C-alpha cells in the first residue's frame, strides 16, 4: 500500500548534455537509477547535440541559438524536457524564449530540419521534477537514511544566481529541502555559491586553484562531511583543481539521492571520483 507501485510512472524527455554523457557519467548513471526508483521515466532525446555551451555563446550568437534549437526540435511536444546540467538548462531555456519572440528564425530552422520546434513545452531541471512531483514519492521510496550526513549544499552559479536575473527560477534552498527530507543535515557558513571557475579551470588553472581550495577549506572548517553539488562542471573543477590537504569528497546530488533511495551499484560511480567518497558512505552505513 505504501509501495512505489502506487505512483503512476511519469514520462519526461531527458537532455544529458556533454558532461553527463562523458566526464560525469557517474552523475548520469545515478540520476537514471534515482529516477527509476521514483517512478520517473527519463527518455533521452534521440541524437541530441551539445547545448552550445559558453564557447558558442561567446563566439557566435546564431550558432549558439541553432545548437540549442536543434535539441528543442528533437523534443516531443507532449512531455516536459528535463536537464540536469544547469548551463544546458539555461541555454535551452534561453533559446526557447528567443525563438518564441522570433518567429522568422524559428520558421527558418523548422523548414531546414523539417520538424516543428516546440516553443511552449516546459524545460525543467530535475530538482524541479522532484519538488513538484516527488516529495511524497521520496518519503515512500527512501531506503537508506542520510541521518548523520553533514553536507554543504554547493549550487554553483547558474542555479543559485540565474543569468537574466529576475526572469528565471531560483533554486536556493531546494537542495536542502530535498536532502533534509532524506535525513541529512546542511551545514551553514561555507561558500555554497562561490563560482568554481568554469572554463578557466581548463585555460588558467592558476586562477582557479586558490578559489577551489578556498571553497573546500570553508566546507572543511564548517564541519561538513562532504560537498553536494548539482552541477557536473563544478564537481569536476572542485576535484581536479584542489591542491589542499582536505580529503572532503564532492558528491553529485544525483549520487546521494540514488544512494538514499537504495541503489546498489554505487561502487561504479564512486570509483570515478578523484577523491574517494567511500569512507564517508561507509561511515554512514555503519551509523545506520
Amino acid at each position, binding site marked *: 500500500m505504501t509501495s512505489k507501485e502506487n505512483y503512476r510512472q511519469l514520462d519526461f524527455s531527458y537532455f544529458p548534455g*556533454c558532461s553527463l*554523457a*562523458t*566526464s*560525469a*557519467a557517474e552523475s548520469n548513471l545515478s540520476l537514471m537509477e534515482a529516477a527509476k526508483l521514483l517512478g520517473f521515466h527519463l527518455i533521452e532525446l534521440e*541524437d*541530441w*547535440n*551539445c547545448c*552550445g*555551451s*559558453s*564557447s*558558442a*555563446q*561567446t*563566439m*557566435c*550568437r*546564431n*550558432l549558439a541559438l*541553432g*545548437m540549442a534549437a*536543434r535539441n528543442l526540435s528533437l523534443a516531443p511536444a507532449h512531455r516536459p524536457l528535463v536537464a540536469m546540467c544547469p548551463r544546458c538548462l539555461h541555454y535551452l531555456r534561453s533559446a526557447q524564449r528567443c525563438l518564441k519572440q522570433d518567429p522568422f528564425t524559428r520558421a527558418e530552422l523548422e523548414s*531546414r*530540419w523539417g520538424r516543428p520546434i516546440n516553443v511552449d513545452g516546459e524545460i525543467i531541471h530535475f530538482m524541479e521534477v522532484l519538488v513538484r512531483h516527488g516529495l511524497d514519492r521520496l518519503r515512500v521510496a527512501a531506503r537508506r537514511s542520510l541521518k548523520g550526513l553533514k553536507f554543504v549544499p554547493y549550487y554553483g*552559479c547558474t542555479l543559485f*544566481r*540565474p*543569468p*537574466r*536575473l529576475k526572469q528565471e527560477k531560483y533554486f536556493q534552498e531546494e537542495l536542502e529541502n530535498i536532502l533534509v527530507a532524506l535525513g541529512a543535515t546542511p551545514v551553514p557558513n561555507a561558500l555554497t555559491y*562561490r*563560482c568554481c*571557475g*568554469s*572554463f*578557466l579551470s*581548463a*585555460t*588558467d*588553472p592558476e*586562477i582557479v586553484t586558490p*578559489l577551489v581550495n578556498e571553497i573546500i577549506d570553508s566546507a572543511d572548517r564548517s564541519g561538513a562531511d562532504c560537498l553536494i553539488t548539482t552541477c557536473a562542471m563544478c564537481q*569536476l573543477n572542485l576535484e*581536479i*583543481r584542489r591542491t589542499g590537504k582536505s580529503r572532503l569528497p564532492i558528491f553529485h546530488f544525483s549520487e546521494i539521492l540514488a544512494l538514499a533511495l537504495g541503489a546498489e551499484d554505487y561502487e561504479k560511480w564512486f*570509483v*570515478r*571520483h*578523484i577523491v574517494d567518497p567511500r569512507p564517508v558512505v561507509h561511515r554512514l552505513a555503519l551509523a545506520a
Partner: protein
Amino acid sequence: MGMQALEKYPSPAAITEAERPLSFLETVRERSGTEISRCYQCQACGVGCPFVTAMDYRPNQVIRLVQFGMRQAALQSKTIWVCVGCHTCSSNCPMDIDIAAIMDTLRLMSVEEGMPIGKPNIIDFHEEVLRSLEKYGRAHKLGIMLGYKKHQGGWLSDLDVGLRMLAKRKLELFPSRVKASQEIAELFRCYWRNAS
C-alpha cells in the same frame, strides 16, 4: 588622454537625431539590455568578483570605459575574457545593472570587430571547443584539451591532472557523435568565417 579615444561624430547640426549613429554606450546598452548609465561606481561588482585579481580593469572600471566611450580599451581588455558569467557582480549591484550581460556584449563586439584579444588563450580554448562541436556535434574533452595544449605549446603543463582524469575514465578516448552530421555542419556555416 581620453580625448582621442572618444568617438568621432559628424557635427551635431549636420544630422538629425534619427540618423545619428549609436554611440558605444548606446550600443552596449541596447545589446546587453541593461541600463549601464545607472552605475555610480560603488564598486560592489569589483569587490565581489572571484576573478578580479586576474583582470586588468575591475568590472566597475570597464563600465566606466564604456560610459566614457573608450571603445578600444574596453574591447581589448582582459577582463571581458576572464569573466565566466557567474553573475556575482550582477546580483551584488545595488542599481540592478546586469554587469555579466555587459561583459557578454563586449566579448561579442570584440570578436565581431576583430579586435586584438585581451586574453588570447581563452579565445583559443573557445575555438577549440567549437572545432570539436563542429566535428562531432558534442564536446570531446580529450580532443579539446589536446588541441588546446598543442596551440599553447604547453604539452607538459597539467599533465598530472590529465592523467588522473584518464585513469578515472573522465576523459573518453573516442568522441560520441551526432548522427545527423549534416544538420550540425549547417549550423556552423554562420560562424567560422565571420569570426576570423
